Each structure stands twice: as C-alpha cells, then as structure tokens.
C-alpha cells in the first residue's frame, strides 16, 4: 500500500534536500579547502606527548572537547539512574557459558589495558579500551551477574565520575601553576595524558556497563558479586 506522506511527499522533500546537500558537498570538496587542518595537526603531533595523531587531537589539542564528552556520558548515566532501578538480572547462564564468560572477561580486561597503553602510538586509546571494559560488563550481565561485575553503588559512583574529575582537576591545577587550562608542560605531557586516559577508561567502561543494566544499581547487592 502506498501512503502518500510516507512514500511520496517526504521522499521527494528529502531528495530535494539531498540534492542541495550533495551539491554543496561537491563544491566544498572540490573547492580551495586543500589540506584543512591535517598539515597543522600532523606537524604538532611530536610536541603533544603521544605519537598517535588521533590521540594527540583528542587528549591534547582538543582535550576540552573530550572533557565535555565525558560529562555527556556521565549525564546520560545519571539520567538513566534517575528513571528507575535496574531490572532484575538475567537467568544465571548454563555452566558451560559461565565458564566461557569467566575465561573471556579477564581477556577483555587485559586487552583493554593493552589498548589503553598502545593508544599513545598506535590505533587505540581510552575510548576503545573503555568500550572493551564495557563489553566485559555486558558479557557478565548476559551471563547472569546481577551487577555486571560492577562494584557497590558507592564505589560505582566514584568510578563513573572519576574521568570527569581527574580531567577537570588536571586542567585546573595546570592553570593554577601557571601553564594555562589543560596546557601540559611538554616534559609531563605523556604522563598526564596517560593519567587522564586511565581515569577516563575506567569511567567509560563502568558507565557503559552500568548503562547496559538500564537503571540504578540495587541498593544492597544481595550476593557477593562485587568485582
């Protein structure tokens, strides 16, 4: 059945929009833009404390964006918590699956640590590492762990807000000592970035796993499943 709005009017409007978009994009790409920021950014990568250009941009050149991004992640989780408690966990998985999960989760955590470390000079970094930690949590939740391997509420709250706190405090302390907000001294840049990334990885992992549970954690864990 053809519904006129859905199948004719909106698509026609969208084709018009698409034409305009495509035309503008064509002009933009074939215009004078050339290098854009690539040359500037790549030239400064050696001064950034890490050699992976994307990590340089994320944690140094545009670190302020990343700080606010962690705040977005925190806001989403706090919003999820304000909407209600987590649903009761899944049925405990069969022992075969459980064994598999128990073997797999440490592997994920290890690779998260690896990913965090190599992010300085190879593809990887806090977000990829955090995502791996988060998927370890999801896997535990699927295997029937009530809290996805997350700690009790008090410690979980610390964990999810840690990234924003460490990031913001680093920025402020650098400002107070006179370098400027989030302006790393070159000799310390590598270590400050690693510090921030470590805190961010923990927060991202915990936040994503907690978001998967879909509500605030149970007030008192009835079983001793805290990791």
């Amino acid at each position, binding site marked *: 059945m053809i519904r006129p709005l859905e199948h004719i009017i909106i698509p026609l409007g969208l084709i018009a929009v698409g034409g305009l978009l495509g035309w503008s994009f064509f002009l933009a790409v074939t215009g004078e833009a050339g290098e854009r920021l690539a040359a500037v950014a790549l030239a400064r990568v050696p001064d950034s404390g890490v050699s*992976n250009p994307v990590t340089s941009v994320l944690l140094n050149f545009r670190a302020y964006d990343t700080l606010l991004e962690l705040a977005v992640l925190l806001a989403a989780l706090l919003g999820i918590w304000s909407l209600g408690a987590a649903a009761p966990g899944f049925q405990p998985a069969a022992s075969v699956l459980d064994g598999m999960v128990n073997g797999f989760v440490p592997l994920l955590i290890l690779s998260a640590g690896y990913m965090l470390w190599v992010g300085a000079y190879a*593809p990887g970094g806090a977000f*990829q590492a955090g*995502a791996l930690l988060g*998927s370890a949590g999801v896997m535990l939740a699927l295997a029937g762990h009530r809290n996805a391997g997350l700690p009790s509420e008090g410690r979980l709250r610390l964990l999810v807000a840690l990234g924003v706190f460490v990031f913001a405090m680093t920025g402020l302390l650098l400002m107070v000592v006179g370098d400027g907000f989030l302006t790393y001294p070159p000799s310390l840049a590598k270590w400050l970035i690693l510090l921030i990334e470590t805190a961010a990885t923990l927060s991202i992992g915990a936040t*994503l796993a907690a978001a*998967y549970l879909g509500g605030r954690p149970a007030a008192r864990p009835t079983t001793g499943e805290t990791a």
Partner: protein
Amino acid sequence: MNALLTLFDLLLTLTLLGLAVVTVTSRELRRAVILFIAFGLLLALVWARLRAPDLALAEAAIGAGLSGALMLAAARRASGRKTSTGEDSDAKDAP
C-alpha cells in the same frame, strides 16, 4: 591497482547502503536491530579502508557492539511485552 581499489570501494559502499536500506525497511524490530549491528560492523571495515583504524575499532566496539547490545535488549523486551499482552499490540505494529 586503481581499478581494483575502485571496484572494492564500489562493492563496499553498495553493500553498506544496501544494509542501511534493509535496516530501515525491515518489518520486524529485532531483525532491524541485528541488521543495524551488521551495518555498524561493515562501516567499521569501510573506515579501516579509509585509514581510520582508531575509528574502526571504536565503531565496532561502541557504535555496533554496545549500541547494538542496548537495542537488542530493548527489542527483546518489546517482543516479550507483545507476546504477554496478546494480539492488540501486535496489530498496532503490523504494517
């Protein structure tokens, strides 16, 4: 070599767009979510081809993986509700 690369580009993009089309037109919710996850994984592959391995990793883990897991849980809940509340809500969703 350029011709091969162009062919590869064409193939990747056509599959990607095809997956996107079947995702948005799929009748069943759960199927749409699974197609969306497949779309995300293929997108990660395309980004690896475009020399963005950081993004490929992130998209596979977050865009496809975690978003997909969240959506799958929601789709499972929706279908669970549908069977428990009977025919009425089924009819609402039917095309």
